[in-house]
C-alpha cells in the first residue's frame, strides 16, 4: 500500500519540482534522481509484493471520499484544458467532444458513483506487477534519455525559441504517475481519471513544438482518445446500471460468468481500449504522434499510453472468453490491424513511421490475444507486452539519437550506420532482432499466440497471423540489412552522444537480452501464476525445454553481435562492379562515356502492393464495420434479452 501510494505520488512531486526549476543542472539532478528512485521503488515493490501475491490478486482495502472528489476535479480540469485549447485553436470537434465528456463524467460521478462503494479501491496482481516494471524501469529510462535528447533538440530549434523543457519533463513524470493509477486502481472511476490524464498528457506532449502539424496531430489524438473516453464513461454507466458495481474486479467476476449486460460493458470498455491502443480505424493518432520529440514517441509507444489500452483489454480477457460479441469485435479488430499495419510498414521509409506501424501491428496482436481470452492467449499477451515495451523503447531511443547525429530519420540515410555509429547500430540491430526473429522473446510470444489461435480454432486469426508475420519479416529484415552495410571507414559520428543517452540505451538493451534469456524464469515467477490466478488453469504452453533452447540461441546471437563481429583479420578485397569500378567503397564506376556514375541501391517499398492509399482504407473500413456491428448486436442482446448476445 505504502509502495503504491509512493509510486503514484512521487512522480507528481518530481513533476512539480521540474515544472518550477529552469536551470539545466538542477533539472538533470532531479530527473536522474527521480528516475532512479522510481525505477528502484518499482523493482523493490515487485520483489516485496511477489511473496504476498503468490499467484492471487491482492485487493487493498482503501476507499476515500476525498480521492473521489480529487478525481472529479481532475476530470473537470482536463475538460477545461481541452476546451481552452479547442477555443484557442478553433477546433470545433475537440470542443464538442470535451463538453460531452465532461457532462457524461459529471453525470456518472454525481448520479451513480457515490451510491456504490468500492471498499477495495486498489489492487495488484501479476499483470500489474509486470506493468509496474515496464512503467517504472523503462519509463524512467526514457525520461533520463530525454535529458540528453532534449538538450540537442533545443539546439536544433530556431534561434530565440522558448525553452519549454520544464513543462516537457513535468508532463513525462505526470504520465508515469497516471499510468500507475491505471494499473493499480480497482475503482473504475479512479481508473478512468488516470485514463483521461494520460490522454491529455499525450495531447500536450504531441503538441509540444506548437507547429501547425503538431497541433493538428495533437487534436486528432485528443478527439480520438476522448471518443474512447466517452466509451469508457458509457461503460461505467452501463456497469452501474446493470451490474451495480464500479469495481473492476467485481465486473470481471460477473463478466466471466456472463452476467446480463456484461457484454455491453465489455464492448464499450473494449472500444475504449481499442482507441487507446491505436487500433484501426484509430491508428492515425499514433502515426501523427511522431511529430513530437522522440522521447515522447518512445514513452507513448513502449511503456505508457498505448500499453494502458492493451492492459485494460488483457485484464478483460476472462470476460471476452465467455462473451461472444465483444470477444469477436476485439479479436477481429486486433487481427485486421496486425495484418494491415504490417503490410503498411513495408511501404514506409521513414524509420519512425515504420516503428509506429510496427507498434500498432503488435498491439493488434495483443488485442487479438485478449479477444481470444484463453489462458494460453493471455500468457502470450503478457509477454508480447513486456518484450514489445523493451525492444520498442530501445529502437525509438536509437532512432532519436541517430536522427540528431546523421540529420535524418529516413532508413535509406542509415546506410553505413554500422561504420558511422558502430555502437548505436549494434543496439539498433539488437532491438530490431528483438522485435521479429526467433529466438528473441517477441517471437516466442508470437509462437504462443499461434498455438492459442490453433487451439481455439480461430482460422481467420491463423491466416492473419501467417501473412502478417511474413510481412513483418520483410520490413524488419530490409531495415536490418541497411544498417549492416560496411564500406571503407567513414567518419565515426557517435563520439558526442550524451552519457545519459548511452546509459538509457544500455539499460534497455541489457534488459531486452536479460528478459529473453530469462523468459522461462519470468514465465514461472510472474506470468504463469497470473494466468492461474485468473483462470485457475495454465492451459497448454510451450514446453520449457524449447524456451531454454531459445535462451541459448539468444546468448549466441548477442555474443556474435557484440563480441564476434569484426575480430577476424582476412585480406580485404573490393566489391564486384563488373570490372569498371572506380572507387569501390563509394560504389562509383566508369560508365560507357568514361564518366563516373554512382551505383545506388534503395530498399524495396512495394508501393503498388502495400502503399497506404491502397491498404489503409481496407483495414479502416473493415474495423469500423466490425465495431458497428458489435455495438448493435450488444444493444440488441441487452435490449431484447437475447442470451447468445449477452
Amino acid at each position, binding site marked *: 500500500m505504502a509502495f503504491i501510494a509512493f509510486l503514484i505520488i512521487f512522480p507528481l512531486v518530481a513533476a512539480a519540482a521540474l515544472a518550477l526549476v529552469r536551470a539545466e543542472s538542477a533539472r538533470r539532478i532531479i530527473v536522474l534522481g527521480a528516475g532512479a528512485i522510481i525505477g528502484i521503488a518499482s523493482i523493490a515493490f515487485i520483489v516485496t509484493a511477489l511473496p504476498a501475491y503468490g499467484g492471487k490478486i491482492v485487493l487493498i482495502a482503501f476507499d476515500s471520499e476525498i480521492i473521489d472528489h480529487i478525481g472529479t476535479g481532475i476530470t473537470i480540469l482536463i475538460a477545461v484544458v481541452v476546451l481552452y485549447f479547442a477555443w484557442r485553436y478553433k477546433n470545433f470537434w475537440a470542443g464538442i467532444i470535451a463538453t460531452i465528456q465532461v457532462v457524461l463524467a459529471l453525470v456518472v460521478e454525481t448520479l451513480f458513483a457515490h451510491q456504490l462503494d468500492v471498499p477495495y479501491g486498489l489492487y495488484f496482481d501479476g499483470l500489474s506487477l509486470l506493468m509496474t516494471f515496464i512503467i517504472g524501469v523503462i519509463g524512467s529510462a526514457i525520461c533520463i534519455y530525454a535529458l540528453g535528447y532534449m538538450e540537442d533538440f533545443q539546439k536544433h530549434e530556431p534561434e530565440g525559441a522558448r525553452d519549454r523543457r520544464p513543462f516537457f519533463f513535468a508532463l513525462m513524470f505526470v504520465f508515469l504517475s497516471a499510468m500507475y493509477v491505471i494499473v493499480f486502481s480497482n475503482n473504475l472511476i479512479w481508473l478512468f481519471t488516470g485514463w483521461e490524464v494520460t490522454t491529455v498528457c499525450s495531447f500536450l506532449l504531441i503538441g509540444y513544438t506548437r507547429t501547425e502539424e503538431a497541433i493538428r496531430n495533437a487534436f486528432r489524438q485528443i478527439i480520438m482518445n476522448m471518443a474512447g473516453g466517452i466509451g469508457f464513461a458509457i461503460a461505467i454507466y452501463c456497469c452501474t446500471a446493470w451490474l451495480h458495481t464500479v469495481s473492476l474486479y467485481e465486473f470481471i467476476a460477473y463478466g466471466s460468468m456472463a452476467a446480463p449486460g456484461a457484454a455491453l460493458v465489455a464492448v464499450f470498455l473494449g472500444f475504449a481500449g481499442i482507441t487507446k491502443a491505436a487500433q484501426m480505424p484509430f491508428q492515425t493518432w499514433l502515426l501523427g504522434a511522431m511529430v513530437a520529440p522522440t522521447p515522447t514517441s518512445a514513452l507513448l509507444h513502449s511503456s505508457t499510453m498505448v500499453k494502458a489500452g492493451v492492459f485494460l483489454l488483457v485484464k478483460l480477457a476472462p470476460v471476452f472468453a465467455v462473451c461472444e460479441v465483444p470477444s469477436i469485435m476485439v479479436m477481429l479488430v486486433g487481427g485486421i490491424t496486425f495484418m494491415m499495419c504490417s503490410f503498411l510498414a513495408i511501404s514506409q521509409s521513414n524509420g519512425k513511421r515504420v516503428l509506429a506501424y510496427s507498434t500498432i501491428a503488435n498491439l493488434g496482436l495483443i488485442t487479438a490475444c485478449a479477444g481470444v481470452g484463453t489462458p494460453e492467449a493471455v500468457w502470450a499477451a503478457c509477454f508480447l507486452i513486456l518484450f514489445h515495451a523493451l525492444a520498442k523503447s530501445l529502437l525509438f531511443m536509437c532512432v532519436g539519437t541517430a536522427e540528431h547525429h546523421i540529420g535524418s530519420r529516413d532508413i535509406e540515410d542509415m546506410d553505413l550506420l554500422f561504420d558511422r555509429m558502430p555502437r548505436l547500430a549494434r543496439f539498433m540491430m539488437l532491438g530490431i532482432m528483438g522485435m521479429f526473429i526467433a529466438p528473441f522473446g517477441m517471437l516466442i510470444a508470437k509462437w504462443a499466440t499461434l498455438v492459442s489461435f490453433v487451439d481455439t480454432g480461430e482460422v481467420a486469426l491463423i491466416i492473419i497471423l*501467417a501473412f502478417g508475420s511474413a510481412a513483418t519479416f520483410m520490413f524488419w529484415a530490409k531495415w536490418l540489412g541497411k544498417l549492416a552495410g560496411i564500406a571503407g571507414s567513414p567518419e565515426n559520428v557517435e563520439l558526442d552522444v550524451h552519457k545519459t543517452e548511452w546509459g538509457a540505451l544500455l539499460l534497455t538493451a541489457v534488459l531486452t537480452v536479460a528478459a529473453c534469456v530469462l523468459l522461462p524464469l519470468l514465465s514461472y515467477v510472474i506470468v504463469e501464476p497470473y494466468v492461474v490466478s485468473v483462470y485457475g488453469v495454465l492451459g497448454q504452453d510451450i514446453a520449457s525445454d524449447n524456451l531454454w533452447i531459445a535462451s541459448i540461441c539468444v546468448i549466441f546471437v548477442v555474443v556474435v553481435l557484440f563480441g564476434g563481429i569484426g575480430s577476424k583479420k*582476412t585480406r580485404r578485397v573490393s566489391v564486384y562492379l563488373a570490372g569498371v569500378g572506380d572507387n569501390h567503397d563509394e560504389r562509383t564506376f566508369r560508365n560507357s562515356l568514361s564518366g563516373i556514375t554512382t551505383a545506388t541501391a534503395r530498399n524495396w517499398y512495394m508501393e503498388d502492393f502495400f502503399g497506404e492509399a491502397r491498404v489503409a482504407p481496407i483495414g479502416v473500413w473493415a474495423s469500423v464495420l466490425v465495431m458497428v456491428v458489435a455495438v448493435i448486436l450488444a444493444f440488441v442482446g441487452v435490449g431484447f434479452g437475447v442470451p447468445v448476445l449477452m
Partner: protein
Amino acid sequence: MTLLYTLIGCIVFAIVAPLVGCLIAGVDRIISARMQGRVGPPLLQPYYDVRKLLAKENVSVNSVENTYIVCALVFTIVAGGIFFSGGNLLMCVFVITLASMFFIIAAYSARSPYAEVGANRETLQVMSYEPMVLFMAVGFYLGAQTFDINGLFTLDVPIIANTWLIFIGLLFVLTIKLRKSPFDLSMSHHAHQEIVRGVTTEMSGPTLARVEIMHWCENVLFLGWVGMFFVWGNPLSILLALAVIAVVYFLEIWIDNNFARMKWQFMLKSAWIVALVAGGVNIAFLVFL
C-alpha cells in the same frame, strides 16, 4: 532431456546432413545433365567443389560477412538437429528463418549493388514462402495433435490423409526454398543471371564453401519436411517417406529444367494465393470438420 536430445541431434545432423546433402546435390547435377542431353559431372562433384573452395585464399569484402555466414550455417544445423531429433516443428521453422536472416544480412553487409539486389529478392522470397510454411506447421499440429515431430510415430494414419492440400501448397513453395527455377530470383546455380550471383556475389573461397554446405543441410531439412507427411506408427513408413522424397525431388529437378525464371510479382502473388487457398481451406476443414 529435450535439450540433450536436441544437442545430440545437432551433432549428428552436422555430420550426416552434409554427406547426404552433398550426394543429393551430385545426383541433382547428373539428372539435370541427362535431362539436357549431357553426361554431367561425377557424383562427388559438389564435394570436389567445396574442397576446392576451402583450399582457396581466404579473402572477404569486410570483416563481418564470414561471421554472419557461420551464424547462418550454425542455425541451419540447429534447425536440422531440432527436426531430426524429434523436436518441435515450429521451433525448427523459426530457427531456419533466423538462418535465412543471417544469410540476408551477410549479403547486405557487403554493400555491393549485386549482392544488395540479391538480398532484397531473398527477403522477398522469405516473405513469399513464410505463410505457407506456417500453415504447414499448423496443419501438422492439427493432424498430429502435437508440434513435436516424434509424435508422428504414435499415429495410426499419416498426416497426409488430412493435409494433402497443405502438402501440395508446400510443394509449391519448396521450389522457392530449394532455390530452383522458376523462383531462383535471389541467386541462381545457372550461369549468367542479370545480378551476377545475387546474394553470394561477394562471397568467395571458404565463405562460399560454407554457403554450399549450408544449402546441403537446408535441402536435407526441407526434404525431411516433405517426408514427415508420410510417417506414422509403422517403422516401414520411413521407407515410404524416402520414396516420396525421391519422387518429389525428381519433380523439382524437372521443374528446374523446364521453366524460365519468373518475375518477383508473380512469385509473391502466386505463393500467397497458393498459401491462402491450400493452407486456409485445409486448416478450415481440419478445424471445423
